[in-house]
């Protein structure tokens, strides 16, 4: 008897308790409930995972009540777990728990402590439902649920209007993606006659009509949904602004778990995508473009969290790219490792920010490495994994992706080159971030650190997650992606690593990046001012900094027009109403005209009567 159902149930319970107590509980209790529920869930996941590996069945199912049955439409609350979802579950609960733990320290000074964990638990619950649901509607429930929590948490400090706008932006933009997804659901139901994921996949494998244009459409719609959630081009614009949320939120939702939901979705619906080259190509292209754009953007950001946000975008781009070129397992593997090191990076940056009184501008930092050793080390490890230095987890996954791209993708050269350039850029901006933050001379004098916030009492709270995540970021890759490869059986493409120029090149790129980065940003050999003075680079940096002007584009194309139509007083109260007002006007007009006849003069009255007499006379006699 496996306790599958209990995994989501625990965070849900936590959420309910915190919600109903309306923050009347003492903080210690809140933190133990908030973090504890997730922790238990994590333990339970471990237990279930052990059961799973030991049992020979390839899926665990836990049914509960029927959701709805209408005619042939039939969905129920049914949890369905295979290796793929299990990986996701482990990442969510594991990383989730560490971040919760960290958050107990990070948020300890903020008001709304209980509300925070309330939302966080709800998020974990929704995310679990997303990956464990056995039908697409349940998945959609989780999908929307995480969107909601992300909205709530981005706008957590609801007193700051900007944060509110950021939250709304995140929700609405992802909602656009969700609309694609839900239409995809309709289409799948129309085709398959059911929303059961497994039935759908079987249908796709066996009885999908050929040529599968419908299938391609389905895949593209799914991709639309994924793009929205995972902040890929063209719906990526919300993610940088989402950094308004507290750092643990950025770590959990906008780095480790939610944003990777899109990857999971595509991986989950693999059999549909396998059928359509076009769709696969689109996936790869989306990934690649995002990767490219995001890397450049990250290169010129000044806000440390925005750097990390763009880097997240680009890393997820890698995952999409991997899926697109058929490196399913590699993509999933990267998802996992990325969850580890990106979470680590965020948490570390979080401590830095906290130590700097919520200063996020890197140019105002510098030389922090001896003041904040632990975050520094954590950051270092994370960056190493991010730039994929050998033997870090990031290395294994990214390397696998690049190799597969080379071996297996349609436009191998192009794809591979772009991917490699991006890898190079990754190292560049990572080095830049590290240098600006931790090395060089202190840039601004506001450096009396709130020690207590960092060392005492939250020390142990902060350090342990750092430690564990750091270990994972290094060792997370050693199990090799064979671990994930059996998720897809033979469908995935494997690229064994053996020495040839390409492999060496891929190996070398990160180092090159680091070295160049060092010369560019750290050493004085290159005069940075000269580069920046140059008008071209100035222009470029502006362009990149704005995230390639997507925000501006959408603003002018969509937001401003909509606002204009909506906000202008012209239609505050409803053009349609004018029609009825017109009727009213006409009626009263006729009333006034007719009333003019009522003069009160008898002789005039008599006259009208005689006139009427004539009229009737005509009507009767001559008609």
């Amino acid at each position, binding site marked *: 008897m496996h306790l599958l159902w209990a995994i989501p149930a625990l965070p849900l319970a936590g959420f309910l308790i915190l919600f109903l107590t309306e923050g009347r509980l003492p903080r210690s209790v809140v933190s133990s409930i908030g973090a504890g529920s997730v922790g238990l869930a994590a333990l339970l996941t471990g237990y279930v995972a052990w059961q799973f590996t030991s049992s020979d069945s390839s899926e665990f199912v836990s049914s509960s009540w029927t*959701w709805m049955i209408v005619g042939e*439409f039939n969905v129920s609350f049914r949890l369905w777990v295979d290796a793929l979802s299990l990986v996701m579950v482990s990442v969510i609960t594991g990383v989730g728990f560490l971040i919760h733990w960290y958050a107990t320290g990070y948020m300890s000074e903020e008001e709304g402590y209980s509300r925070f964990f309330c939302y966080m638990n709800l998020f974990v619950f929704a995310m679990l439902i997303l990956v464990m649901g056995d039908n697409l509607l349940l998945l959609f*429930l989780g999908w*929307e649920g995480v969107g*909601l929590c992300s909205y709530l948490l981005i706008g957590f400090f609801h007193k700051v209007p900007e944060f*509110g706008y950021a*939250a709304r932006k995140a929700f609405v933009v992802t909602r656009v993606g969700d609309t694609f997804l839900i239409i995809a659901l309709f289409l799948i139901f*129309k085709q398959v006659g059911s929303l059961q994921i497994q039935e759908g996949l079987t249908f796709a494998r066996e009885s999908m009509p050929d040529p599968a244009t419908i299938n391609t459409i389905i895949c593209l719609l799914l991709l639309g949904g994924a793009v929205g959630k995972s902040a890929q081009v063209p719906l990526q614009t919300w993610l940088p602004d989402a950094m308004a949320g507290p750092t643990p939120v950025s770590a959990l939702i906008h780095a480790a778990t939610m944003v990777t939901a899109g990857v999971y979705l595509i991986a989950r619906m693999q059999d549909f995508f396998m059928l359509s080259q076009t769709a696969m190509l689109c996936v790869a292209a989306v990934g690649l473009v995002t990767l490219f754009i995001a890397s450049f953007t990250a290169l010129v950001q000044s806000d440390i969290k925005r750097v990390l946000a763009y880097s997240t975008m680009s890393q997820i781009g890698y995952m999409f790219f991997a899926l697109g070129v058929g490196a399913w397992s590699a993509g999933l593997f990267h998802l996992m490792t990325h969850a580890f090191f990106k979470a680590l990076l965020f948490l570390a940056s979080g401590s830095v920010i906290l130590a700097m009184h919520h200063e996020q501008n890197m140019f105002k930092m510098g030389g922090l490495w001896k003041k904040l050793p632990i975050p520094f080390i954590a950051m270092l490890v994370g960056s190493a994994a991010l730039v994929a230095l050998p033997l870090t987890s990031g290395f294994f996954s990214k390397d696998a992706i690049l190799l597969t791209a080379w071996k297996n993708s349609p436009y191998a050269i192009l794809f591979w080159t772009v991917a490699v350039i991006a890898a190079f850029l990754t190292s560049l901006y990572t080095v830049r971030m590290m240098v600006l933050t931790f090395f060089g001379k202190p840039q601004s004098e506001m450096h009396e650190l709130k020690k207590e916030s960092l060392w005492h009492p939250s020390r142990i709270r902060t350090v342990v997650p750092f430690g564990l995540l750091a270990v994972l970021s290094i060792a997370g890759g050693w199990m090799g992606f064979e671990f994930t490869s059996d998720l897809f059986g033979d469908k995935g493409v494997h690229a064994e690593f053996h020495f040839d120029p390409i492999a060496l090149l891929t190996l070398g790129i990160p180092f090159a990046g680091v070295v160049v980065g060092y010369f560019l940003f750290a050493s004085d050999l290159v005069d940075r001012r000269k580069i920046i003075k140059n008008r071209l680079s100035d222009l470029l940096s502006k362009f990149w900094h704005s995230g390639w002007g997507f925000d501006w584009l959408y603003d002018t194309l969509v937001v401003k027009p909509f606002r204009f139509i909506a906000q202008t007083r012209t*239609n505050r109260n409803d053009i349609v109403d004018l029609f009825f007002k017109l009727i009213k006007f006409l009626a009263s007009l006729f009333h006034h005209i007719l009333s003019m006849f009522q003069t009160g003069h008898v002789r005039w009255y008599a006259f009208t009567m005689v006139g009427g007499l004539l009229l009737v006379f005509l009507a009767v006699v001559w008609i």
Partner: protein
Amino acid sequence: MSVMLLILLLLGAGVVAWVSERVNTTLPNWIALITFVATTLWVLVIWFNGPDTDGLYANLNREWIPRFGIDLHLRVDALSLMLIGLTTFLGIVAVVSSWTETKTRHGFFQFNILWVMAGVIGVFSAFDLFLFFFFWEVMLIPMYFLIAIWGHEDKEYASMKFFLFTQISGLLMLVAIVALVWINYNISGVLTFDYDVLKEANLDIATARLLMLGFFIAFITKLPSVPVHTWLPDAHTQAPTAGSVILAGILLKTGAYGIIRFVVPMFNEASKEFWVWGMSLGVISILYGGYLAYSQTDFKRLVAYSSIAHMGFILVGVYSFSKLGTQGAIITMIAHGFSTAALFMMAGAIQERLHTREMSKMGGLWVRAPRMGAVTMFFVVASVGMPGLGNFIGEFLVLIGAFQKSVVLTVFAAIGIVVAAVYGLSLMQRSFQGVPNPDVPKMHDFAFREMSVMVLLMIALVWVGIYPQSLLQMTAPLLSELLRPTL
């Protein structure tokens, strides 16, 4: 028989409440509250006793005006029972929501509330077209009084507009009903207003079209759908809280009920030809309503327009002529009843505290009243269509049903979901988030009275959201009867 008793009980209680005003000004509130609680429990009892062999929960058929074959024919099947339950339950909400709001003539106020409810229950259970029309008009008068006496600054205009729209469209329906009966009389020689008989009247398609239009216009005016929706925002804005709650929660549903119960089954072929128009009207309402909702600055007005958008989904669902769509429409009726009632109650509560509905004068209320903030958030999220809450179920079923009929229209309707997110969240942000507005007076948060009702509504919504099957399985047997030979 039990229905008649229910109606009489409400009527009687109304009179008692009115009289009891002389004793004590809060006594009427208590009487009304007790009545509604009792009726709700009663309905629940009927509910759990389950239907009889032919799926009816109650049935009463007496002669009323034999000269024209008009009967007092009240019948409760699953659909009616659900809506009656909704009615009595929202009765509780209405009474509680305006517990302290009315400053004058408490007795007459409660009298009107109780009588509206009686009329509505009659509408939901009348199976004789004349009787239906009778109740249809009767329920308007107390509603008119509610708006006209206890309404806000612009009540004369609003109440007049409300009454004119519904009455005039009602006249068309009366003509259609009488014509239908008369034609049936000439064909079959039987002069009767009975639903079951007239449903079988074999009209030639041209006549059927005209008659259907008569009914259709009346119902979409009540629903309301673009282009005859303009009475709703004014009526809502000006009505007292209880009025808005009843109006949005129940009276709009009578329109939807009419379409589901009368237009589609009685003029089946005609409506089937008509589906494009029906669905398009629905889609237009969804988009136009949502767009107007966003452009409002008045809390209540915004919610009013949003319910126009939601009602659009009902049209789309019904005119998809699929089981999914119809079920979706029914669920939407219930869920929207809960969510909008709550939102209007919230609007009333805010107005009672701040004496304004202008969102520009609000802002940062969350700090002042976190509970109200959380509650509003919940219901905004619900009406935005969050899975796991009632509204989503309805809209999803509607859309997936409509998708089988027309892809394009469904896609447009689905865009409505995004729009909903836009105005919903902007409502939330403009009123509750942001910097606390300095010139907003201190306001006290929800106390037990309001909170208890809100919690009830939340539970109801979650229940509809995660276990809609409990409702779906009730109405499932009706579908074939409602949709006639289709499917």
